């Protein structure tokens, strides 16, 4: 029972109160770069969720069974980024073969996931927080879902910003950042959320 509570609090934390974008600042680049339209944003969100789940599983195994026994923990960063880069490459080839429609929909965003700091971030945080295997995978997937939620909400607001009236100097990134700031303020409201 205790286990379920822990998983539940990890889930709520990753999606709402400790959202990767709004409270931990991980994955801001794709969040700002790929949020001009809702459909590309949701595609990116789904791809990131998938990669984050898979990456946290594999990096946890790599850390537990290769790095720790060989006393190579200081190579964590290098090992993890290599795992993530090859994972993304593998997923790209797999999708191209098995699901060409999804592959074309994601297009350029797939290779960009390698440099998404949310993916490397979740791998490092799993180790830092001493999560076990199941907790790591849950944290990865729900962290991705939090990213998906944030980017879809943000993209739908950004679509409407076109009609808004604001000073000319704020055109482009600045107004997007201010919008994201207001959303972060809204997400701060979840910080009181606690599970037992």
């Amino acid at each position, binding site marked *: 029972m205790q286990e379920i509570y822990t998983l539940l609090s990890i889930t709520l934390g990753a999606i709402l109160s400790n959202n990767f974008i*709004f*409270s*931990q*600042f*991980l*994955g*801001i*680049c794709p969040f*700002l770069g790929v949020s001009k339209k809702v459909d590309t944003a949701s595609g990116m969100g789904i791809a990131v969720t998938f990669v984050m789940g898979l990456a946290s599983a594999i990096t946890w195994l790599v850390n537990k069974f290769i790095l720790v026994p060989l006393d190579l923990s*200081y*190579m*964590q*960063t*290098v090992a993890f*980024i*290599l795992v993530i*880069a090859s994972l993304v490459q593998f997923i790209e080839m797999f999708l191209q073969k098995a699901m060409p429609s999804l592959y074309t929909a994601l297009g350029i965003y797939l290779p960009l996931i*390698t*440099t*998404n*700091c949310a993916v*490397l*971030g979740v791998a*490092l*945080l799993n180790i*830092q927080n001493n999560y076990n295997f199941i907790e790591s995978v849950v944290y990865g997937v729900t962290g991705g879902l939090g990213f998906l939620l944030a980017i879809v909400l943000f993209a739908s607001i950004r679509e409407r910003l076109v009609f808004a009236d604001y*000073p*000319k*100097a*704020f*055109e*482009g*990134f*600045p*107004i*997007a*950042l*201010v919008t*994201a*700031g*207001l959303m*972060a*303020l809204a997400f*701060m409201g979840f910080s009181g959320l606690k599970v037992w």
Partner: protein
Amino acid sequence: MNFGKQFKEGLITNNPVLVQVLGMCSTMAITTSFFNGLGMGLSVLVILTASNIVISAMRKVVPDKIRIAMFIVVIAGFVTCVDLLLKAFVPALSESLGVFIPLIVVNCIILGRAEAFSYKNGVLASAVDGICQGIGYTVVLIIMCVIRELLGAGTFGGGLLNNGDGIRLIPEQFPIGMLTFPVGGFLVLGCLIAAMQWALSKSKNKEESK
């Protein structure tokens, strides 16, 4: 190569954060105290310069197809060095920057400069580019830190001056605490980029009217 021009580009006209809009995560996440901003800026400066030098030295040997993988391995190597050095000599900084030190690997500034500059230019020019862009990044971080710390906590030089508490400039009950939270990062950076765009378009207009 004109070094003065490169310096001006890194600092103002092609500033990595304010104009190229790269490396946002660390810019917003760690700029809550002066010490953090300075430490992060200098770490990135060192890593950027070192990786620029190595990448531009290796640019003729490495095949085009695997260049991104090569960039990442080189950068990850330097990041690991800096991470270990900080842990050994400045443990307080390493603790307060936390996961954002290893995350320099995926900081788009470094990968972006590797792809856009050092893969195409000589070793010396790349080294200078690394230093200039690094200085541009550090300056923006420090400006962000000073604004957020002054308005958010009412102090200056936190983590470094006055036994780490910083010098209090605004009495405790007045600062806007919100600015030290994530919200403040987004708002302050948004306003800074807006100010930069305004200044750049103004100077452009002036040139055109001449």
